[in-house]
């Protein structure tokens, strides 16, 4: 196991920790807006770090580019969907937690 493999493992574990934090936020935060915040921030960052860890294992630039595209797509769709859910919550008059 080379140094690159160890680095990948560390990065993927850090990414998994961010996912865990996001899920904990989803389960424990009081209202929908704070839950959305926890989900999108933690999951996007967790995915980014996991992808960096995976990129270290690849040999070709094309594959690295594909992983980057996946992360950008998840970022884009995650942010848009979070906005739409929050907008729907506002329209249903769900009040933020004080």
């Amino acid at each position, binding site marked *: 196991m080379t140094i690159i493999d160890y680095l990948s493992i560390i990065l993927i574990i850090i990414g998994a920790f961010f996912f865990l934090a996001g899920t904990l936020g989803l389960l424990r935060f009081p209202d929908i807006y704070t839950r959305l915040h926890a989900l999108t921030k933690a999951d996007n960052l967790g995915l980014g770090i996991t992808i960096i860890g995976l990129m270290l294992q690849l040999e070709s630039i094309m594959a690295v580019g594909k992983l980057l595209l996946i992360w950008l*797509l998840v970022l*884009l*769709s995650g942010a*848009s969907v979070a*906005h*739409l859910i929050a*907008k729907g919550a506002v329209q249903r008059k769900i009040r933020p937690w004080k």
Partner: protein
Amino acid sequence: MEISLLSTIFDVLLGLSLLGLAWSALATTDLFKAVLLFIAFGLLMALVWVRLNAPDVALAEAAIGAGITGALMLSALARLNSPHTGRAIASHTTDPEKDPSIQWWPFISLVLVFIGLAYSVFTFSPAFMGLQPDVYSQLVNSGVENPVTAVLLNFRGYDTLLEMLVLFVALLGVWSLGENPAVKTPFISPVLDTLSRLLTPVFILVAAYILWVGAHAPGGAFQAGSILGAAGILLLLSGWQLRKDTSSLFFRVLLLAGPLAFVALAAITLLIQGQLLEYPPAQAGLLILILETFATLSIGVTLAALFLGGFPWSKNRALK
């Protein structure tokens, strides 16, 4: 030795969470929660397919099993609750008649079925080559390098022909149930509008890539077709008025392109070679690519039309 114990523990955990998700999806009283748990179940299944060395199945399950089935169920649930049906309907997301206690006769039959299946599972021999040597020995003649694509499009092309017809017949069944009640689209947020404009070209590009790469890596026509179907669903949900387009000739040609291409090829090979769907090995790769392209277009359009539901508008019908 350590690694195999860890992977066994991982498999057991994955399997138990699969069972847990399925049980919660069936037992929860809120229908919306049940559908969401089912979507999560589908995504976990995709992980299980990867664990079982089946990446093509994983792609298909994530796109079709979790994505499109989930979208279909959520859309049906929304129509059940919608106030446009003209009846005084209480919220249908809770199921007031569900008896929370276990009913004993069905439970006994559950246990018996499980014991029977588990017994048959135990009688399987642990190493069985099946058709794998036959497929791999004939792979060079099939025109592609991905064995699953070779089986789907060449060795068992007849099954795929019937499958295209099944999709078509399902759409005919949905259309024969009457016209889709015109749902008033709510205000479309500019974020959704921009998202649909940005993502649709990306969808088309990714679908074309997965179609092309299906020849030598996991991918293929069904996965690419379901990505196109998802693009269609996104456009429909973003308020693009695709209903008027669904009665056009172009749309209907696209619907039929897949099944017709298969049937035409079957007829041609029957006439030339005397055998249904037997491709000459030299042109097999090209034929498979052409078939897959038509199949992808058909599958995408059919899945989007299944999501739309209802018979498409005809041009001479006035808007009520």
